Structure formats: C-alpha cells, structure tokens
C-alpha cells in the first residue's frame, strides 16, 4: 500500500545518493589536481564543498521532520538514522577532499618530492571502498559491506608506510620538510576517507538487518594489511 508521504523517503534517499556521488567526485578530482598540479581543478573541489554542506543540512532537516511527523518503524527508522549518520560521513569526506585540494595548490608551486605512486594507490582504494559502501545503500549486500570494512587495513598500511618514508626524507633533507608534511597530511586525509567509507559500510549492514558490526576487532583484523 502506497502512503501519501512515501515521496518524502524517496527524496531523502536520492539526496543521500547525490551526496555520495558528489563526495566521490570530490575525492577523484582532488587526487587528479594533486597528481597533475591542476590548480583550477583544485579550486573547483574547494568550491563544490558547499554543495555537500547544504545536502548534509537538508538530509538532517528531512530526517528530523520524518521522525517527528511520520514515526518511522523498522526499516524506515533504520533508514532515517543511517541516512543522518552516512550524510555526516560524506560531508567529512568532502572536507578531507577540500583539504587535499588546498594542499595540492600549495604543492603545485614546487617541484614534486617524489613520483606520485602510493597516494594515488591508497586514494583509489578509498574511492573503491566508498563506491562499494554506497552500492550497498542501493542494493543491500552485507558481504560487500563487510569486504569494505576489511579493506580499511590496506589504506592504513600504505599510510603508515608513507609516514615512515616521508619522515626519512625530512631527516635526511630538511629542505623537503614542507612538501613532506603536506604529503603526510594528504595521506592522513585519504586514510580518514577510508575510515568514513568503513563507517558507511557498517551503517549499511545496520540498515540491512539491524546488526551492529562497529568496533568488531576480529572483523578488522581479518582484513589484509596490503
């Protein structure tokens, strides 16, 4: 039976998907701007963050209104709760992309410290994780969501490796400190993006069957360390 307010949930769903789409594009563009030194693209990433902020606020408003007026139960209740949490994660993904874009602009003014290999690798993994987590929003798939959680270790491992490598640069060649620090922060941003993708994947499992898999150390340890 269709209800007169079902359209509100459809809007809520499509706003969340739109947020996911924008957040993924932001991360891709930020990486592209870094690797190619494209300042214009980096500026576009920074400017587009406003859309994510607006979408987050809109989703919160829709969720609060829906809970207040429609008393959602079961799947709908989980959808509204998960929607609010996932939109917060996606907004933070946008913030991290903005941070990467700002650093990309500063790095573009200097010669590259080293060829960009690890950062694109870890960023592409984080993007794949984000896309997979968002796919689970469209097609509930707990196995796929759990696979995302397990992949978080891969990104963590690259981040640690980069940290060690960049620390050596700084010790050996103090002139690289500024660039190495920028890259360290970029690596940390990507690691956080993967964390947000992990959160979203965990939220999708809760949406699918009310199971809370957060902070499941056994699950996280089961992931490959890259």
């Amino acid at each position, binding site marked *: 039976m269709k209800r007169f307010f079902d359209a509100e949930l459809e809007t809520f769903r499509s706003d969340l998907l739109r947020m996911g789409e924008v957040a993924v594009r932001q991360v891709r563009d930020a990486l592209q701007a870094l690797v190619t030194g494209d300042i214009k693209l980096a500026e576009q990433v920074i400017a587009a963050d406003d859309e994510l902020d607006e979408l987050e606020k809109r989703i919160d408003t829709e969720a609060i209104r829906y809970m207040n007026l429609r008393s959602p139960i*079961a799947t*709908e209740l989980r959808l509204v709760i998960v929607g609010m949490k996932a939109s917060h994660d996606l907004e933070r993904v946008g913030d991290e992309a903005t941070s990467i874009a700002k650093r990309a602009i500063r790095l573009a003014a200097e010669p590259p410290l080293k060829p960009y290999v690890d950062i694109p690798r870890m960023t592409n993994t984080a993007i794949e994780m984000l896309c997979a987590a968002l796919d689970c929003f469209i097609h509930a798939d707990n196995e796929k969501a759990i696979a995302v959680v397990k992949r978080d270790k891969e990104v963590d491992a690259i981040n640690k490796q980069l940290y060690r490598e960049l620390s050596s640069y700084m010790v050996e060649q103090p002139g690289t400190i500024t660039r190495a620090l920028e890259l360290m922060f970029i690596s940390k941003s990507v690691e956080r993006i993967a964390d947000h993708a992990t959160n979203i994947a965990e939220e999708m499992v809760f949406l699918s069957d009310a199971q809370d898999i957060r902070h499941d150390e056994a699950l996280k340890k089961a992931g490959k360390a890259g």
Partner: protein
Amino acid sequence: MDSTATASVPRSRPLATPPASSAGAERGATLIDIKDLDFYYGAKQALFDINLQIPDKRVTAFIGPSGCGKSTLLRCLNRMNDLIDGTSVKRGAIKIRNVDIYGRDVDPIELRKRVGMVFQKSNPFPKSIYENITYGLRIQGVKNKTRLDEVVEKSLRGAALWDEVKDRLHESGLGLSGGQQQRLCIARTIAVEPEVILMDEPCSALDPIATAKVEELIHELKKQFTIIIVTHSMQQAARCSDQTAFFYMGKLIEFDATHNIFMNPKNPQTEAYVSGRFG
C-alpha cells in the same frame, strides 16, 4: 474440544496456584502456554494453529489489522468466548501454570477471577466508586468493612486513581471522566487480585493525557501482574510492551521482543503492518 460443553462444569477446584503462593515464580518464565490452538465461531475458523508462550509479569502486546483474531485470542484466555453461542476450541490447548483452562474441571468463573479483563469502553457499574471496587469481593462473600476499605484504597492506589477520588468514594463511578472511569475499571479488576490482566484496546476511547496515565499504570502493574494488551496503536505497543505478537488472518505471524518487532521484524508482513503499509 468444544468449549460450549464445559461452560456449565461445576466449580470443583481453583484454576491454578493463586498469586500469593506463586510469588517465588521466576519473572519472565512462561505463565500461559498456548499450543496448536484452532478456534471457531460456528463453522468459521477464526484462529489457526496458534502456538505462543506468554511470560509471567511482562506486558505482551497483540497487534494486527481488524479481524486478524487478536481479540478472539485474548478472549480465549479467560473463556469470554464461551458466552458467545457456537464458539469452540476444536484443537489445541491453553495452559496457565500448566493447567488446561479448557479442562473439564475448570470453572470459567474461577478462571475469570484469575484472568481479569479491561475493555475498550470503560464500563463502570452504575454504582458508587466504592461499590465498583468491592463488587467482586462482596460476591465472593467478603463482608468485613475494614478489609473492604483496605482493598478499595489499595486498588485505587494501584490504579493511580486514589488521590483523585479519595474524597468522593461514595459518588457514582459514572460521574468520573473517561480516563478516570477506565482506571476505575482497572482498579475493579485488580481488587480481586488476578494473575493476568487482559486489556482490549484500553485507551482507544481516551485522550492523550488519559492514555499516558493508563500507559504509566501498565508499566507499574507489570511488577505484580501479567498483562496482555490488544492495541491498534503501534506506538502504544512499542511504548508499553516487552514482547509483541503480530496476527494476520487468524494466524500468528511473528512473536518476538518488542524492540525486535519494531526495529527489525523477520517477516515482511509484520514489517508492512508496523510501518503502516497495510492493515
């Protein structure tokens, strides 16, 4: 087994262990065990193969669309259906503390003392508040004024009505507001110290404030009584009950902790009903 055949069985023994001696029973242990129950109104089957264990001193909600059999099952629990011609339990059993309530030696009147009922529409007797509460005890032969006074105060306090009516106990119960009348009926029910209180949509005719008072009362009463409530309000079932049974077309579709029914029901029909998609 045909319930109409047992309606006139003489009162031979108490239905079950009275509450005083059941104080040590484990809270949450099965009190009412419904097994393979088929129930008929004449030739029409109203309940199909119901299996349900209702725990002691908990609130159990029966939900489902109109005509799903929830009120029928409720009325089976104190054999109120016996009063309707042609009704019969054709298969299965309902046991309260291991006593088959449709057994040949069970007296329905005795049963209804142990399993009290509160109806959708409050139905105080056209008598004083005091007489409403003492009516059941007087029928049982209690005449001691001190004892009756004690029961009146205890029952009205138990029904959260004492403070509102203590100065007008001898005025008509019909002069109370709708919410007060419903609480008076609850007080009248608990005056005879039942083990189980059946509530058939007890708040459907009440305003939100009176509803909140009855719900608060249900929360208090479950410390002493096992409560089964039929309600059409999903929010009320969610707020008041510990476990919820969903019925559809005479069948028990799902029975689980209320949190599970409202957060993650296993059956798609339950999900559709609690979300207001049918019913």
